[in-house]
């Protein structure tokens, strides 16, 4: 992947729709390109040691998920399961209704993604392209809201849903996505739209188009990279969300995968192979999406410089 670029600094008004590949032949890279062979060797050694440290927990996860309880509690530990206990996976996943949790999570995903895509593109378009009184004030408030600790709004929002009878429904997790789709997504999408040439809008207006025409004919067709970025981030956020479900969902019928996994630990406090098998299963789709959408991931992070 050599698209890793776009500076944080220049993202406000770049001329091109997306980070340019050739930027990765960067100044810093170029100036350090002829070091001593020794430092080269040291560099590789350091990078490889670092990689091993990064990957070791994954290896530990997988190996633990494939062991029997007798082998996992052996000291000193063994790295290769013998035999490979593949049955841990189906057994762990059926011992608790993970199928239902999956369906719940999937339903929330679909509803949230639809809301985020639809309303963030519309909001970003109006902030990037249309002039109306109070626009800058609203945009600043929106951006400012990203700095607000979630703890401040958490309690009143919970109280509101409780009053509205929304506890133990998916509404508290879905409805906010339909109201702008989140400040971060609006910001990211707007950053992207600022790079689309305005001449295209002008042309549409000349032909008697409305802003809706511009949005539909110009902005949406050109915005698919940004929509993919937002889609991936949103999917992952929903998949990983833990605090939302523990606050709003108490009936096991409504559990999401993340919540299911958390309570699974309580039920199977000592069954580490099962717990590791369930954890791997929840991790797998995210890794898959990451490998498919890797390019967009990195563009998304560098396009905004945000996402901590």
């Amino acid at each position, binding site marked *: 992947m050599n698209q890793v670029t776009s*500076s*944080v600094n220049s993202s406000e008004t770049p001329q091109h729709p997306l980070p340019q590949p050739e930027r990765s032949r960067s100044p*810093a890279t170029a100036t350090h390109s002829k070091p001593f062979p020794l430092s080269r060797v040291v560099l590789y050694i350091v990078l490889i040691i670092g990689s091993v440290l990064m990957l070791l927990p994954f290896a530990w996860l997988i190996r633990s998920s494939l062991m029997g309880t007798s082998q*996992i509690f052996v000291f000193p530990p063994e790295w290769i399961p013998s035999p490979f206990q593949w049955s841990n996976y189906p057994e762990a996943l059926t011992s608790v209704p993970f199928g239902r949790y999956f369906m719940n999570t999937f339903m929330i995903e679909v509803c949230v993604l639809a809301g985020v895509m639809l309303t963030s593109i519309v909001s970003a378009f109006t902030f990037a392209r249309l002039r109306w009184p109070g626009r800058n004030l609203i945009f600043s408030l929106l951006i400012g809201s990203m*700095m607000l600790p979630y703890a401040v709004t958490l309690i009143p929002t919970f109280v*509101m849903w409780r009053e509205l009878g929304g506890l133990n429904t998916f509404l508290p997790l879905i409805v906010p996505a339909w109201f*702008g789709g989140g400040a971060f997504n609006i910001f990211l999408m707007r950053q992207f739209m600022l790079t689309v040439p305005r001449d295209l809008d002008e042309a549409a207006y000349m032909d008697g188009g409305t802003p809706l025409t511009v949005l539909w004919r110009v902005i949406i067709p050109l915005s698919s990279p940004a929509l993919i970025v937002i889609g991936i981030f949103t999917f992952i956020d929903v998949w990983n969300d833990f605090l939302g479900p523990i606050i709003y969902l108490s009936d096991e019928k409504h559990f999401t995968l993340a919540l299911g996994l958390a309570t699974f630990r309580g039920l199977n406090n000592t069954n580490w192979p099962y*717990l590791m098998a369930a954890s791997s299963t929840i*991790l797998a789709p995210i890794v898959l999406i990451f490998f498919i959408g890797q390019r967009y991931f990195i563009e998304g992070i560098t396009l905004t*410089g945000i996402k901590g």
Partner: protein
Amino acid sequence: MKRPKSGMMRMERNWGLLFALPAILGLMIFTIGPIVASFVFSLTNWTIGGQMTFIGLDNYRTILTEDATFSQSMFVTTYYALGSVPLGLAAAFIIALLLNQKVRGLSVFRTIYYLPTIVPSIANTMLWLWMFNPDFGLLNSLLEGVGLPGSKWIYDENTAIPSLIMMSTWGIGNTVIIFLAGLQSVPTHLYEAAEVDGGNRWHKFFHITIPSMTPTIFFNLVMSLISTFQAFNQAYVMTNGGPNNSTLFYVFYLWRTAFTETKIGYASALAWILFFVIMVLTVLIFSTSKKWVHYEGGERS
């Protein structure tokens, strides 16, 4: 660019407001409304199912003068932030420098270093819980393997927070990528000028790379500080705040107060104190930033 005529402007305004409506409503319902409500709650002694009485600033006074759990959770959170933010930033910066070299398999290395960041937080906590296991966990096995004594990790009040700091350092991929983007935008002409003046690698690093990177360092510092002050999952899933309240993160204490003790008023006051602390810290960093953050050309988005 020509500005459209007034009919056009009216149309733009109407469509503009219509398109902004979801975001404006969202801001009012899910941000501004809750902020106001939260502040009002914080002035009451409301518990779910109980009477709501207006008690002025009593919650704040109790928290700041009598509540030992508050000071403990503030201490724990500060300790965690002071450990994990500098360590995370330094590690991320070093990794970004390494990944900014011309090496074979660069994209593979970048992928590997980013991978931990995408692990769902709940799976992450389960995995580390098992790695921290004092008897059969990965970490003690490794220590044992090289002849070092093991540790009780999160199960001992002295090592619990350092353990969680270590765990947080595993997932610094986003910070690495932002640093990497920053490194790649350091102006080439500065390096060339340094070379002409006979500057060596260290000169270039300390006089060009570091100063050019200060805006990125600043940005990452603020963002990681804000997020570490809101740590929650580790305490909830891994340690339940223990042992002996040594991992009682602030948001975990707040959550417990609000959702298990249902003390809505008191918890709201706790939330406002957190807001205030984060704001003061951010303002402090911003005010010192003029001394150490260099912007080329003086402006920045």
